[in-house]
């Protein structure tokens, strides 16, 4: 099973209503968003989504005129307590892996947090994390959370 997670990245033009249009498309297609983050610059934004149906989300967004791409990210499950994120950071930075961005959500049970990482070298990162006994959540499992 591939450990990588596919994130949907959507280009958002900097004008009122763009994000709302994207969320409407997803709603109409009955797509559930697991988690998301928005990267913003002065001139544009990028919506990053983890959804239950990657292919469908990709298709409906493209069909509605959005610029979409799939980006490989890594999901790591950590206990929801102080130091959870830090332990991961320590492990990857020791190996010289850079984090481009990160966002997270807490599982329904409230015991664990899932952190989504965009690494410059996802393969190596997965390797390092697994060797250090972190719980890397495979894409398939995450989509169905």
């Amino acid at each position, binding site marked *: 099973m591939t450990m990588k997670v596919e994130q949907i*990245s959507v*280009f*958002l*033009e*900097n004008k009122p209503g*763009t994000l709302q249009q994207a969320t409407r498309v997803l709603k109409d297609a009955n797509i559930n968003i697991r988690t998301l983050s928005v*990267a913003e*610059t002065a*001139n*544009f934004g*990028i919506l990053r989504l983890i959804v239950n149906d990657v292919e469908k989300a990709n298709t409906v967004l493209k069909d509605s*005129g*959005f*610029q*979409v*791409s*799939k*980006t490989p990210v890594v999901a790591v499950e950590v206990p929801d307590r102080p130091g959870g994120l830090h332990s991961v950071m320590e492990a990857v930075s020791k190996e010289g892996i850079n984090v*481009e961005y990160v966002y997270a959500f807490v599982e329904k049970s409230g015991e664990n947090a899932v952190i989504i990482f965009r690494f410059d070298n996802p393969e190596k990162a997965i390797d390092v994390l697994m060797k250090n006994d972190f719980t890397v959540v495979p894409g398939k499992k995450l989509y169905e959370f």
Partner: protein
Amino acid sequence: MFYNEEFETLPREALKALQLKRLQQVMQRVYHTVGFYKKSFDAAKIKPSDIKTLGDLKKLPFVTRNDMRDNYPYGLFSVPMSSIVRLHASSGSSGGSTVFGYTKRDIETWSDLVARCLVAAGLTKNDIIHNAFSYGLFTGGLGLHYGAEKIDASVIPMSGGNAKRQVSILKDFGPTAICCTPSYALHLAQEAAAMGVDIKAFTLRVGILGAEPWSRAMREEIEKVFEITALDIYGLSEVIGPGVAMECIEAHNGMHIFEDHFIVETIDPQTGEVLAEGEEGELVFTTLTKEANPLIRYRSGDISRLIKEPCRCGRSHIKMDRVLKRSDDMLVISGTNIFPSQIETILVEIKGLEPCYQLIVDKAGALDSLELQVEVSDKIFSDSGSVKELQKIEQRIVKDMLDYLGVEPRVKLVGPNTLSKAGDKVIDKRRT
């Protein structure tokens, strides 16, 4: 006041006779030295000796900007490079730019013409001239500079930019005249106000403003805020640079075209037909004295009209009204001439970009502002979808625009298919 009273006030019959003699000479010269002219005159079945009257000029084919580009860089020069002492050029990347050469005598002629302009503005060797036209490949800075030295005035070679420094120099050095674009003059006024500097206390008396279209209302505004007389100067690098025409301070209404050096015609930009003097049309220039690259019937793209009524200043040379329009899609951004096709060239050079863009020109305060909207193509986004990559593209566009065209746009990436391919490439919201 005149710099060259004899020639500036030459009776019109004598002026016409001089024009014809010089036209016949320049025709011979270009026919025998520039392949482009030989080919185009032969194609039109005209020999230089066929030019018997000034009226025969209209039989000759036009020279267009495309001809200049096709002959980039030196194809239209009529002297060897050993006789060229200076090269100027328009903005643009290779192929989009045009190059202008000057012999030693051309520099002399040009300086004399600018000297005429400065004297027509009432300036003498006792004046201090703050020259804020850009120095460099653009003809404005050096053109005004040489003219100012010609009349033995004291010239401050400020060039453009650094508004705060400009304001302190205007305050401390006591210049009596300023040369720049009209919008830059207003920008300096605003900058001074922001710095708490009272520009009415400046010693400025006259502004010699040009290189971009400006309205009567804008002139009034400049005259009011600076308490100066604002005069219009006209020129185009293809023809020689600034100093093709100048408004005299006496009439303060219309620019005298120095007809002993240039023949001006107005044509219907659609049909190319010559219009009666006084009718609005595209100005066409023929250079009579330029050695390095003489132009025969060059279509300037500037729309104006000629004013043939005698002027109270005593100059016999015909006047032209202010330029407010272009016959083509050329844009003047802060004094820099830009064609939309040049922007397209820059965009297609950037990997993965489609030349799907819209340029929005507006005013930010007194200055021109540019927003360049570019569509995010599949190629760019599907590879990365990352902020970093998109920002790199943005920066690259800004840098290339600045490097090649000399203007700095704000780049806005927009979604796919938001700019219609057939729609307006340019939206100009500036008042003129």
